[in-house]
């Protein structure tokens, strides 16, 4: 359907507007947004700002009032909506698994619609269950009511990935789980996307989740107006205005440290085994935490010694003041 079949393709929204009948103002007003191929873009904003409406226009569950949508160069509004949706993965907060079908039947639904052979569907179901960390032999024949909330969300993601679509739309897909399960699902999903490189539009009202998962973040105001659209690091480093700054909160610098890993920093000295030890793939935030808890301004990793000054430098703060100011 799109020019590339499974790897990400570019999505372009042009002056996209939705005015629900009987509403005084449009829910989405003149949104223009480019989503590069293979990137995960998070739409983040307060409840009711039009995130879901914007997303649902892309698979035409909501018909735009005006504007254009192009996926991989194709004009989406000229396609048959049912055909289109079979090539766009869709996962939502409430999951919406079919309770009368087994996990395998739920996952195999779109491949079946696309005419895959039974053997190919079976193999794909096994592959996807393993991918979302559910043991196929244990889970394929279960029914949704026999799964926990977190397991249902995993199956929901597997189902959205089933036909290996180039584009995925995800509307708060981990929203309905407890914080621990949620964090676990986010980490797994981030790892998954590193391999898959789909083009993903991910909706959330949770800024932490946006920073964690997004290659880029679009911070939305009411009516889906874009307040800032950039990489997490760029948004944290230079919020466009007070609205964005409000979203980031008081600990923007800590959040930036969390985005950088120990390996990103050039070490000041060779590794030193007498200092507190941190792993090379830990975040700078974890490194700082370690220093604070040991009351030192240094720690060491397999790549070398990390100082408080180098952390300051990493977030672009004037390091001299700390190094020279012997307070």
């Amino acid at each position: 359907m799109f020019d590339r079949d499974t790897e990400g393709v570019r999505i372009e929204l042009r002056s996209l507007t939705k005015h629900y009948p009987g509403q005084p103002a449009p829910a989405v007003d003149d949104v223009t947004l480019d989503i590069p191929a293979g990137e995960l873009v998070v739409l983040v904003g307060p409840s009711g700002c039009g995130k879901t409406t914007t997303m649902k226009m892309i698979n035409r569950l909501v018909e735009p009032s005006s504007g254009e949508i192009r996926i991989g160069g194709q004009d989406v509004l000229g396609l048959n909506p049912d055909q289109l949706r079979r090539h766009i993965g869709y996962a939502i907060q409430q999951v919406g698994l079919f309770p009368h079908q087994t996990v395998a039947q739920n996952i195999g639904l779109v491949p079946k619609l696309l005419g895959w052979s039974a053997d190919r569907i079976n193999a794909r179901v096994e592959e996807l269950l393993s991918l979302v960390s559910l043991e196929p032999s244990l889970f394929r024949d279960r029914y949704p009511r026999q799964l926990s909330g977190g397991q249902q969300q995993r199956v929901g993601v597997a189902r959205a990935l089933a036909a290996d679509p180039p584009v995925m739309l995800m509307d708060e897909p981990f929203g309905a789980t407890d914080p621990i399960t949620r964090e676990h699902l986010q980490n797994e999903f981030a790892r998954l996307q590193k391999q898959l490189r789909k083009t993903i539009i991910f909706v959330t009202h949770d800024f932490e989740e946006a920073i964690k998962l997004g290659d880029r973040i679009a911070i939305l105001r009411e009516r889906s107006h874009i307040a800032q659209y950039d990489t997490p690091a760029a948004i944290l480093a230079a919020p466009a205005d007070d609205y964005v700054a409000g979203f980031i909160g008081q600990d923007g610098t800590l959040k930036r440290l969390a985005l950088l890993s120990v390996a990103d920093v050039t070490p000041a000295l060779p590794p030193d085994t007498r200092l507190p030890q941190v792993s090379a793939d830990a975040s700078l935030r974890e490194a700082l935490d370690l220093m604070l808890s040991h009351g030192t301004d240094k720690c060491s990793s397999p790549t070398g010694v990390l100082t408080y000054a180098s952390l300051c430098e990493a977030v672009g703060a004037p390091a001299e003041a700390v190094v020279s100011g012997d307070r």
Partner: protein
Amino acid sequence: MSFGEYVVSRWDTLSLAAAEHAMVVAIAMAVATAVGVLIGLLFYDSPRARGGAIAASAAVLTVPSLALLTLLIPITGLGWGSTLVALTAYAFLPIIRNTVTGLRGLDAATVEAGRGMGLSRTRVLLQVQLPLAWPLILTGVRVSAQMLIGIAAIAAFVDGPGLGTQIFEGLSRLGSVNSLNATLAGTLGIVVVAILFDLFFFAVSRLTTPRGLRVRS
């Protein structure tokens, strides 16, 4: 003649009447289920259409059966015709109402997920909504059937089939030999037919309720 001797001596008449009773209810139920579920599927999503269908089927139920049967005689005549028409008309309300309630009561996310994956509206209705609403629809059908088994006794009034003839015979010859036996045989026969229908529906419900809806977490 004792009741037992009565039943033995009239076994052929009684069993034929019981079979006819079951038959007329079964035919009326088959028609009403097919039409009622179809009406539910077509109208459940439109407030005006579903309201109209439910109001109309409820209105029919308020007409006393004796009156309805009498009014039908000029059109469908005496016997099976009028009986079938009246019974079918009475069966609609529980079937249509439960179909509408079942289809509307589903989790909206299930339907949205189906549409979002590229199932057409018809496919979602037939492959997702209908199976999920089925247990409730079947309950409506079962209620209708129990109701019709009782109402069908009155069909004897228009010379219709069934066990009602026994009951009316007893009533019209009250005090004479066997009048009580006839009424009792008719009544017990209806109870037996009702039990058999219920067993049938129990089996159907076990066989047709999707397994995923019966499992416990």
